[in-house]
C-alpha cells in the first residue's frame, strides 16, 4: 500500500508515468513513451534515505573540510561545516539506519532530485550562482547555496560523468523542480523515471 506521497507534481509533458511501490513510496519506474537518451535527466529521488549527522558522528565520516564530499557507490556524504555533514543513500535499501544519536533522519524533510547527463553541468550552472565545477580537481563536492531564492544542498558527484543531486526543504520541492525544468529547457532536459537514473548511475563509465 502506498502510504507515502510525493512532494512534487509530475508534469504532463514528461509522459505517462509507470509507477511502482517501494516500501510505501510511489516511485516512477519510467515514463511512456520511453524517455530514450537524454542530454539532461531530472529524476525525483525524494524517497531515498537522508540524514544530518552532527558532532562526533560527523567526524567519523572521514570528511576533512567543508565542501568536501565522499561518494562510495552507495551513499553520498558531504561536509557542510566542521561537525555537520549531510548523508544521502542513493542505492541501498530504503531504510535510514542512524549509526547513533548524532544522526537525524531527514528523509521526509527534503526532496531530492537527480540532475544528470552530459549537459547537466550547464543546467546546474544556470540554477545556482556558485562555481560548481572549480578548477581544483579531485573528489565529489558539496555546496549549500541558494537556487532562485530556495536554499539548496548540492552534490557534484564527479564520478567519471557529469551528474548532480540537489535537495531542498520539502515545502519548496515544487519550486525547485520547476526551477530545474526552466534551467534545463534550453539543454533538452527530460524528466525521467528511476530506471534511467539507476542505469546512468550504475552503468558503465561514459
Amino acid at each position, binding site marked *: 500500500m502506498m502510504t507515502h506521497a510525493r512532494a512534487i507534481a509530475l508534469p504532463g509533458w514528461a509522459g505517462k508515468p509507470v509507477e511502482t511501490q517501494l516500501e510505501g513510496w510511489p516511485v516512477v519506474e519510467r515514463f511512456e513513451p520511453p524517455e530514450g537518451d537524454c542530454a539532461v535527466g531530472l529524476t525525483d529521488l525524494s524517497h531515498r534515505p537522508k540524514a544530518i549527522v552532527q558532532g562526533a558522528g560527523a567526524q567519523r565520516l572521514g570528511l576533512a573540510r*567543508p*565542501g568536501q564530499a565522499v561518494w562510495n557507490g552507495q551513499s553520498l556524504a558531504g561536509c*557542510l*561545516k*566542521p561537525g*555537520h555533514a549531510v548523508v544521502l543513500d542513493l542505492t541501498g535499501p530504503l531504510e535510514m539506519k542512524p549509526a547513533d544519536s548524532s544522526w537525524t533522519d531527514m528523509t521526509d524533510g527534503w526532496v531530492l532530485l537527480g540532475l544528470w547527463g552530459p549537459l547537466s553541468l550547464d543546467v546546474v550552472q544556470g540554477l545556482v550562482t556558485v562555481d560548481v565545477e572549480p578548477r581544483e580537481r579531485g573528489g565529489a563536492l558539496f555546496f*549549500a*547555496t*541558494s537556487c532562485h531564492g530556495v*536554499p539548496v544542498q548540492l552534490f557534484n558527484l564527479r564520478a567519471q560523468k557529469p551528474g548532480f543531486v540537489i535537495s531542498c526543504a520539502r515545502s519548496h520541492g515544487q519550486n525547485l523542480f520547476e526551477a530545474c525544468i526552466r534551467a534545463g529547457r534550453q539543454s533538452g532536459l527530460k524528466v525521467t523515471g528511476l530506471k534511467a537514473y539507476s542505469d546512468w548511475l550504475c552503468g558503465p563509465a561514459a
Partner: protein
Amino acid sequence: MPFLIDCPNCGRRSPYEFKFGGECKRAPDPGADVKAWCDYLYLYENMSGVQDEWWYHTMGCRSWLKIRRNTVTHEIIEE
C-alpha cells in the same frame, strides 16, 4: 574587489546569501543600569570605515560569522 564574503565553510559567496547581523557590540552585565542597556540596544557606532560585524549564512552553512568590513568600499579585511 567585488563585495563577496569569504565564508570559512562555503568559500567566497555573494553577500545576498547572508543575513546582515549588525555591528559587533558587547552587551552590558545583566545587572547594569538603564542607560547602559539602552545605549547598548539603541546606539550604534555606525562606522563609515572598517568595522567588525556579524553575518549569518542563511543560504549556506547557517553559521554566524564575524566579518571585518569597510562599510564605504565593501572591502573585506582578512584577519
